[in-house]
């Protein structure tokens, strides 16, 4: 479904991604972790072309992301993405946030879009909040709306970029619960996160990154059982014991 081959990226002279290769099969959940500044957010933004990369190739569902001829908006409309800071559009009501791309990109009618929005809001437990503005919701609620907004496009895969790291601790679980449910339904997911509990529960594979490199790319059991690299061991000991 998602395949990366030798992807490298530079900001000026500084190399943020070094020769990264990996793949995510249909129906797989892959967790990407690593210290801050390790390039994991950049990597996931390369998947739908939000960040350009200079070398290598990324193929999503048979379409090459780096190819200048690729219709990026069309590709992106098939891949849902959820951000660290939710990124709901503050001037639009919850329903309008969810409807916008359905109407403007997929060309659905307003009624069709609204119907979809309401069923998704019900699914994430927020059907009473449909007419509110993002600023009137808690962080956890906003992130669940953001997930609903991405799902409304009937995506073939979902990207999560640290979806819980901007949340107050008591709100993390309401978001993780939605994500776990999604994983169990068989959604293809690539998730940048430090929530190792989530990884243990639903991930098929775990990727560990440091200094722009993929240091470890292993099945969940291998990764948590006996991580091979020194850096991964250190990282795990830091985040698991705090």
């Amino acid at each position: 479904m998602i395949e990366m081959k030798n992807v490298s990226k530079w900001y000026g002279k500084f190399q943020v991604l070094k020769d990264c290769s990996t793949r995510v099969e249909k129906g797989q959940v892959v967790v990407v972790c690593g210290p801050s500044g390790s390039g994991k957010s950049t990597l996931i933004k390369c998947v739908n072309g939000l960040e350009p990369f200079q070398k290598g190739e990324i193929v999503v569902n048979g379409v090459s992301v780096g190819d200048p001829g690729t219709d990026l908006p069309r590709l992106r409309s098939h891949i849902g993405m959820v951000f660290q800071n939710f990124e709901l559009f503050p001037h639009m009501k919850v329903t309008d946030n969810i409807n916008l791309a359905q109407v403007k990109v997929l060309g659905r009618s307003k009624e069709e879009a609204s119907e979809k929005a309401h069923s998704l809001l019900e699914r994430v437990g927020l059907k009473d909040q449909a007419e509110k503005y993002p600023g009137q919701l808690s962080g956890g609620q906003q992130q669940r709306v953001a997930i609903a907004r991405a799902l409304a496009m009937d995506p073939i895969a979902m990207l999560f970029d640290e979806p819980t790291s901007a949340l107050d601790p008591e709100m993390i679980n309401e978001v993780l619960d939605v994500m776990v449910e999604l994983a169990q339904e068989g959604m293809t997911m690539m998730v940048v996160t430090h929530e190792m509990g989530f990884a243990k529960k639903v991930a098929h594979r775990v990727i560990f990154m440091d200094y722009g490199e993929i240091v470890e790319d292993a099945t969940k059991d291998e990764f948590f059982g006996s991580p091979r690299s020194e850096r991964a061991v250190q990282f795990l000991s830091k985040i698991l014991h705090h």
Partner: protein
Amino acid sequence: MAYNWNWGVFFQDAMFGPGTYLDWMLSGLKWTVVVSLAAWLIAFSVGSVLGVLRTTSFRFLRGVAATYVEIFRNVPLLVQMFIWYFVVPELMPKDVGRWMKTGMPMPEHTSAILCLGFYTASRVAEQVRSGIESISRGQTYAAYAMGLTEVQVYRHVLLPMGYRIIIPPMTSEFLSIFKNSSVALTIGVLELTAQSRQITEFTFQGFEAFTLATVLYIMITMTVILLMRVVEGRFRVPGFIGTGGR
């Protein structure tokens, strides 16, 4: 101080033309408002386009817009006024130049409106740019990630929020255009300041004439501020606190 107060001066018949000096002041007020509003239409539309261009992904268009802004804000308004009125007709093809000097209706007013409009556009452009730039990068990412095109991202995400953020500085640009419209008197537009000056020269009642002009400008300012408050209230986003910074 040996000054002969005479507030009745406004009800005297004017030196020439029909009506009283009060009529002169009201006519001045009318032209101040007309010139300013017409110029604002140009400033707002041209400035918005330039401001957007300065943030787009096309390097060439960014350069064009940046050059425009630098030129128009580094030359005094008075000089620009003279250039629009005296110089532009000379530099046009002969027929156009002749028409501008003889055929164009109300050449002073037209030049003043164009000058003020294109001058203020450079300042509006800077506000629009800073409004768009103050929106976090994540919002743009999110919009693109949904599959929106660049035009759609501006239309549905960046501009609606950008304009809301810049309502306060745009209010002060809007106020500036009324004040700056007084520069039009240098090319012969009889706006509010010009009329008060003219009345002073004919009647020597400077206190009265300048006081009334001052009061009328204050009233314009208060009207604009009230109006913009209504605008701000109408477009307020519930629960939105601001994007922080600058």
